[in-house]
């Protein structure tokens, strides 16, 4: 086991490098003789075992027709190499990107599968390493779109690994596959983390009138009590539940703009700050409030709407990752 454990990373590394040389990342790939691999499947070996059993029985009982059956099974097995290979051959695959997702969700990469000629492709299976399979058929239409999912863990720009395209059609005795790198990536937003939006202290906020407006109408969270807070704003119910003295915070709907600031979450680490900011971006976008973003080195002015929201989320996703 130790030897295997020691050799495995080295081996995986070698395979990866070999694949990188053999099948470099491209935006579109066509499968052919040189990038399709083919090997028998487990059911294929079971089938071979049955064939061997029939063959041995044929020898021992001198059953001419049982020989015939064993040979028919062998021929079919050999023929399936061609059929399985053919099912993948000439398939053209193009990456069509993926919609951004939040960390922890599955990113759905869209692949467009084209058939070049009249050769149809049945029961294609696609997946990223260790992820779930997606299925596609390219039959009547010349192209089909298939979404292949990849789990995400961290925010940032996630580059899609090689996708495995395989088929076991027609009998499941052989598996033909290719590992395709279509140079795709997806923006992974931080995972939204619900929490209060602390009032920015005068010192840390930029001093703009619109840095943070604490209102009284729109409840949006709780914060710890500090001396001087109005008793009206104390969350009595929470106190009764033994959750300590909290103060309800409200945002004024009238003041429909604020700048979300990195400095509003002192004491938290960077990722948590981004997650909380992400939550508030969604929250504000949902309520149609103008908002901006201020991160170290990044500043996005006030705005609203889908595009603005995406721009802000993207900034959160890519902050300090080196990607743009």
């Amino acid at each position, binding site marked *: 086991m130790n030897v295997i454990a020691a050799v495995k990373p080295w081996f995986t590394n070698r395979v990866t490098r070999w694949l990188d040389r053999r099948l470099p990342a491209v935006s579109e790939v066509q499968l052919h003789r040189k990038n399709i691999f083919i090997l028998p499947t487990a*059911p294929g070996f*079971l*089938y071979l*075992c*049955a*064939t061997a*059993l*029939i063959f*041995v*029985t*044929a*020898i*021992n*009982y*001198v*059953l*001419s*027709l*049982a*020989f*015939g*059956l*064993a*040979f*028919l*099974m*062998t*021929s*079919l097995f*050999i*023929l*399936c190499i*061609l*059929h399985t*290979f*053919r099912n993948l*051959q*000439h398939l053209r695959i193009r990456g069509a990107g993926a919609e951004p997702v939040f960390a922890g969700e599955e990113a759905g990469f869209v692949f467009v599968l084209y058939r*070049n*000629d*009249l*050769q149809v492709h*049945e*029961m294609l299976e696609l997946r990223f390493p260790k992820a*779930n*399979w997606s*299925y596609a*058929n390219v*039959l*009547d*239409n*010349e192209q089909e779109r298939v979404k292949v999912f990849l789990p995400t863990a961290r925010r940032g720009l996630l580059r899609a690994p090689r996708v495995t395209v395989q088929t*076991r*059609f*027609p*009998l*499941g*005795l052989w598996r033909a596959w290719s590992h395709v790198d279509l140079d795709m990536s997806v923006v992974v937003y931080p995972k939204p983390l619900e929490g209060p939006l602390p009032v920015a202290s005068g010192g840390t906020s930029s001093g703009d009138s619109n840095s943070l407006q604490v209102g009284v109408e729109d409840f949006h969270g709780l914060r710890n009590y500090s001396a001087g807070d109005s008793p009206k704003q104390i969350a009595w119910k929470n106190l009764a539940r033994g959750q300590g003295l909290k103060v309800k915070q409200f945002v004024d709907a009238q003041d429909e703009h604020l700048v979300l600031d990195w400095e509003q979450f002192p004491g938290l680490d960077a990722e948590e700050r981004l997650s909380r900011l992400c939550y508030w971006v969604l929250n504000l976008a949902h309520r149609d409030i103008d908002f901006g973003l201020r991160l170290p080195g990044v500043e996005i002015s006030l705005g609203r709407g889908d595009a603005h929201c995406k721009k802000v989320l993207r900034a959160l996703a890519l902050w300090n990752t080196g990607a743009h």
Partner: protein
Amino acid sequence: MEVQTQIPRLTLWWLLTALFLVISPHLLRLPIWISLLIVACVVWRILIFAGRAAFPNKPLKMLIVFLSIPLTIAQYRSLGAGLDAAVCLLIMGTVFKLLEMRQRRDMLIVVALSYVLTMVGFIYSQTILASLHALITFTVITGALVSLQRENSYSSFTSNGRLAIRLVAQSIPLTIVLFLLVPRVAPLWTMPVPVSSNKTGVTDEMSPGNISNLSKSAELAFRVSFEDATPIHEELYWRGLVLDYFDGRAWRRSASAFQSYSMMERFQRTSQGVRNGTPVSYDIILEPTQQTWIYALPLAQLDVSDVIQDRNYTLHKEKPVTQRLRYQVQSYLNYDIDLELASALKARALQLPEEELNPRSKALAASLRQEAPGDRDYALRVLRLFREEPFFYTLTPPALGEASIDEFLFSSRQGFCEHYASSFVYLMRAAGIPARVVVGYQGGEINPFEGYTMVYQYNAHAWAEVWLEGEGWVRFDPTGAVAPERISEGAQSVLGNQPGFLEDSRFSMMRFRNTQWLNSLRLRLDAMDYAWNRWVVSYDEDVQLQFLETLFGEKARERLFLALGVAISTFFIIAAFFLLRGRKQKQFDEATKYYLRLMQDLAAQGVGRKRGEGPIDFSARVAKQKPELAAAMAEITAIYVQLNYGAIPEEGQKDAMLFARLRQSIRILRLALNTPIKRVFLRVWPGQF
């Protein structure tokens, strides 16, 4: 993943059909309670499938398995049939697996078992029909695999079936090559053989009635094809066994004559008999008899490894003939055996029961002996007795009592060949002449289409051999004295009208041999079956070597593997060429290209053109599904049809104008389909033209 582990519903039907095909030939052969259990399990599975029943729970499964396996073994132990029990357990195992088949993995195991069970069928039958049945079964199992691979959404019974048939058909060429070329080897180890409860054909005991019983059967005993001309009917005495021990009623092999196989082997090396003249060469395919002896014309010489000649010059195999057996024989019809009769053999050939039950016969022998002192004269005198006295050759003789010889010779005088052979040998021995009974077959029917000879069970016969000084063992057939046409023309010509003939073969086509076309159909079918057996079923090590030698000459064995490699690669290359060459899209004309683009856009809207649907039908369907497109589609279709299928216009100019209009219309419609403001376009459409 969910999709991967579930069994598609369609697949289950394929598999059930395959299992039905695989198991049905065995159902009648299996003990009735097992057959019922199997049917019950399959019905249960169908009920599960229909949602009417649940999967059996674990205790119930255990109960079924732990009850049925010991019961099966107990059932078969009494029969001593190891192979039959194994086959039965295999079938039951497959059917039980069906009951707990929930996932693809389980199904794959059932599929593998079904393939094996297809082979098991061949242990019991290798006829053309059985082979066709197996081929169909194989295709259906393959269809089950195909439908397992395809999603339910687009797989259909016919599409899966077509693909399965195509796959099997494409594999057949290589199958034939492998069948011919893959070296056949001798069995690796001995296997239990299926025990058939009914041994057919001639047995090693002859008592009144048991050969006449065989005449009720039109079953085939063996088929012979002679290399040169077929000898005349009277020469066709297919010798089986020599019976030289008489207990007063039945003839058997004497205990001392019944030699062990190794003793026979020793005899084979020492004594061979005298062969005169040129031999007749022929090739026999013997139907399974479940007995160890085989049939041939005397004096036979054959070179088959495990067939041996015993002291009586009969042929024995080491193991019973449980499958069709093909062997080549050379027979010297002119022969001398045992010119010197060893004293032990002589004593055996003179044996009579100690208790005298047939005094009148003994007296008859003594009186005849006085008339004819010479041994040969005496034998001929006895034959004359049968010929001249009112003896009858009949299938339904009256039953005989204790003194069977006396009763036959003096009162009933009606008998079948066993009666005549028995009393003839008795009279010989009573006169002190060594004699013995021989059982086998006599005659045969020549198939006019292929020229081979068919020997049926009703050709079973018993005759006598008498030892004469200086001549050795000489054949005498007392039946010939009573019914000469039995020997010269065959049993069917004498017995054809007698009640009881072919009684056991009520549905045999042999019964209709007097109807011209049915008879010729029967003979043709038999010729087919014979060819099948000769060239396919009997294709073994020896035949293969012969075939390869005609193909590759002397060095067949060395060239075999090369030939095999070449054949397989050739197949692979040819198949690859046809399968892997790209099937290029047809070169569409310009109009069609535009039309097809429109089809694509319409398909994206949910109105795809079906396979084989013509443009006009399609247009009508679009009008029904999307009325707002009706006018546009009608226009485009009209132009397209005019362009593609209309009469050739007189001048090219007109054609070009039509094409321009088509292109324009399609462009506008596609624009309308693909832009949000399509409603506006569509509303103004009719005014466009």
